């Protein structure tokens, strides 16, 4: 029992250090941490600080499944992890949600997925059904219980993965960025449920970047940096730390542009009566939208509201079932994707879907050479300089940190000098510092004449950095407003509607 609180220690790590196989630097270094029954411990820190490794250590995965050098002791409910026979036995005491929701979904319907673990607990069927109903309702996934998990949006998948773990009713939960892709409402539902579970005695160790939404439910907050615990305190104390706070609004926001209409500049994107259906589901149901050159537009909405489906029409990856999409004067419903790629750059949510080259330089050159085989290295250097990766030119792309990979993905797109840059969830999985850096880059790009459309479930991000917020619900636009006072902006009106003037090379290198 802990003398401090009288509550029994559920999970403890004593002097835990770990070095991955083939690596010289330790990912964890002398970690001492305990989580008591009924306590929520919130762990945060910069990208690459060792948060995921901490989750793997706490759940016994490093001990049972990974090689490498592991020192120190981990105990679950007082039992040392090495005394557990295998992960199946550990799974009776600890529920783990990994940061890759996709990889945790095994079965063919959502209900089957959530029920799968329950069927292995040896509990009565009536209790199983009750638990299944309760968790699915609490997480808000009942509406798509019969759908195949792989057809869901990223956020919906994440909710299913959380439900499939919570339904097991383990005494300890280890959650690695479980709400990274969730909208505010779903994040709120998860935090309420976690608080309720903690009140019933569940010990929760949660790693997250969403301080504002989740840290408030925590009893303790832990800041981890460079594999060591840098600071521990109450959420109120810790939120005063400038390292942890979200960048203040307006810090890096470029001047607001004028609307298209006052200046008479034709829109760069014009969507008319767009309908998109697939597999019998209407993803977009009759939508009109115009985007003016030079705008930063945030397309926000709950998971599954059709945001990504909409922007995939801009570069021809999806074609309209009905209606028209005109981008930079081209009919995106019929022009080949390769041609549209000269005008529209799309940065995917997960940079790992595109990285394949041996070096950062080759990675950026790939798209550039596809549209202009005679291109030189100058645009590559300029793009890398813009995103602060010029010094990593020779590095292997997949060895970069998550934030660096995200910036590299942006560099790959901006090197092709498209007038319109579309980003799908550009800050998911990034810490506040990295997220701010990405947004700063977008600000520069807008100043250089690019138009930015970013898809995000993070309203705060839209409020802080976008000129305009377009809100979607069930495949329709239900709100469209500006985040600044309307007014004329001579600078933006003077931008030529021709090729985007990419000027990063004139800036000082990193």
């Amino acid at each position: 029992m802990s003398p401090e609180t009288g509550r029994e220690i559920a999970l403890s790590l004593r002097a835990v250090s770990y070095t991955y196989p083939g690596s010289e630097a330790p990912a964890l270094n002398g970690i001492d941490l305990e989580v008591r029954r009924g306590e929520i411990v919130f762990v945060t820190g910069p990208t690459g600080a060792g948060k995921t490794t901490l989750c793997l250590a706490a759940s016994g995965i490093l001990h049972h499944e990974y090689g490498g050098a592991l020192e120190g002791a981990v105990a679950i409910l007082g039992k040392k992890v090495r005394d557990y026979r295998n992960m199946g036995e550990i799974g009776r005491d600890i529920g783990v949600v990994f940061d890759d929701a996709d990889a945790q979904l095994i079965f063919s319907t959502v209900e089957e997925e959530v029920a799968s673990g329950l069927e292995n607990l040896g509990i009565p069927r009536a209790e199983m059904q009750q638990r299944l109903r309760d968790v699915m309702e609490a997480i808000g996934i009942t509406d798509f219980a019969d759908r195949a998990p792989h057809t869901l949006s990223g956020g919906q998948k994440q909710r299913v993965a959380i439900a499939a773990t919570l339904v097991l009713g383990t005494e300890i939960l280890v959650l690695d960025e479980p709400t990274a892709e969730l909208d505010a409402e779903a994040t709120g539902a998860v935090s309420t449920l976690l608080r309720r579970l903690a009140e019933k005695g569940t010990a929760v160790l949660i790693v997250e970047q969403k301080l504002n939404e989740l840290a408030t439910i925590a009893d303790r907050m832990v800041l981890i940096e460079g594999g060591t615990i840098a600071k521990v305190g109450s959420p109120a104390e810790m939120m005063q730390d400038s390292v942890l706070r979200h960048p203040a609004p307006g810090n890096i926001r470029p001047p607001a542009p004028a609307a298209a209409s006052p200046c008479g500049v034709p829109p760069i994107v014009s969507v008319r009566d767009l309908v998109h259906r697939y597999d019998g589901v209407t993803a977009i149901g009759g939508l009109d939208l115009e985007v003016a050159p030079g705008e930063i537009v945030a397309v926000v909405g709950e998971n599954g509201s059709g945001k990504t489906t909409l922007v995939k029409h801009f570069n021809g990856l999806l074609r309209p079932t009905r209606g028209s999409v005109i981008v930079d004067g081209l009919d995106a419903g019929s022009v080949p994707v390769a041609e549209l790629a000269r005008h529209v750059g799309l940065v995917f949510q997960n940079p790992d879907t595109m990285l394949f080259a041996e070096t950062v330089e080759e990675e950026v050159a790939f798209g550039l050479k596809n549209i202009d085989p005679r291109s030189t290295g100058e645009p590559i250097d300029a793009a890398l300089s813009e995103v602060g990766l010029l010094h990593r030119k020779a590095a292997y792309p997949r060895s970069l940190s998550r934030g660096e990979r995200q910036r590299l993905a942006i560099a790959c797109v901006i090197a092709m000098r498209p007038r319109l840059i579309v980003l799908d969830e550009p800050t998911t999985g990034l810490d506040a510092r990295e997220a701010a850096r990405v947004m700063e880059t977008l600000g520069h790009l807008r100043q250089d004449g690019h138009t930015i459309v970013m898809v995000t479930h993070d309203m705060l991000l839209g409020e802080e950095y976008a000129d305009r917020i377009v809100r979607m619900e069930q495949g329709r636009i239900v709100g469209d407003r500006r985040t600044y006072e309307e007014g004329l902006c001579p600078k933006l009106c003077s931008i030529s509607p021709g090729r985007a003037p990419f000027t990063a090379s004139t800036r000082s290198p990193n």
Partner: protein
Amino acid sequence: MQYITRESAFHRLHPFTKLIFVIVVVLLAVLTSDIVMLAVLVGAVVAAAVAGGLARDLLRQVPLLASLAVSLLALTVLTIHNGEILGYLVPQSVPVIGGAFPVTVGAIDLAAAMSLRFAAMLFAFQLFVISTQPRDLVHLLDRLRMPIDYTLMLLIALRFIPSLQLEGKRIHEAQLARAYNPGRGISGKVRGLFPIIIPLVSNSLGKATVLGLTIDLRGYRSGLRTPMRDLAPGRVDVAGICCMGVVAAGYLAVLLV
């Protein structure tokens, strides 16, 4: 090939009945090389799919079967030379090499028999997979005392097919957005595969680790399986088994006569 949520006659059958169906089709397919009998067998499986409202899903395998049939035909024409000669790949009028690679009835018969056999087995297995929820499959194999490692291997394999397809599509889209052009000629096609294959393999390896851990943590080795719903055979299973029995008996009777 994955489970499809639908209310079909096949979906209502007990998984064990469907497994018997697959086994019966496989046995009947290997018992003969007669093209007519194998065509009848394929027809019976397709008729069962039509009756169950799943015929359109079977059609998705036709391109694969067609390419397999062409490959088998090429292989048998090059290697089997028994039976009546129908013609030559290289016309006899061509100097020196004229008359090479005769196309014989034996080669065509063998290619057709193997293709039909494969079609019958593939269609039957597909009907089983698309109408059986994976958890029901796990319970069935568990009750048949299949070692859990083999069951989980099958589960992961079935899970990975759609997952790989989806990941491949995602990567393809990401590269298309960078004006990706697969290139011309064989070397171009091979070079053009790298931007897809490398991320696909790297990402899949990472996902496989998490998938394995998830299966373990959900207690699939606990041996305490309690199905969420009853899977007792019903009248539809009796009817299904009777139909299979009649078709199989008729098939065997014709073979033996």
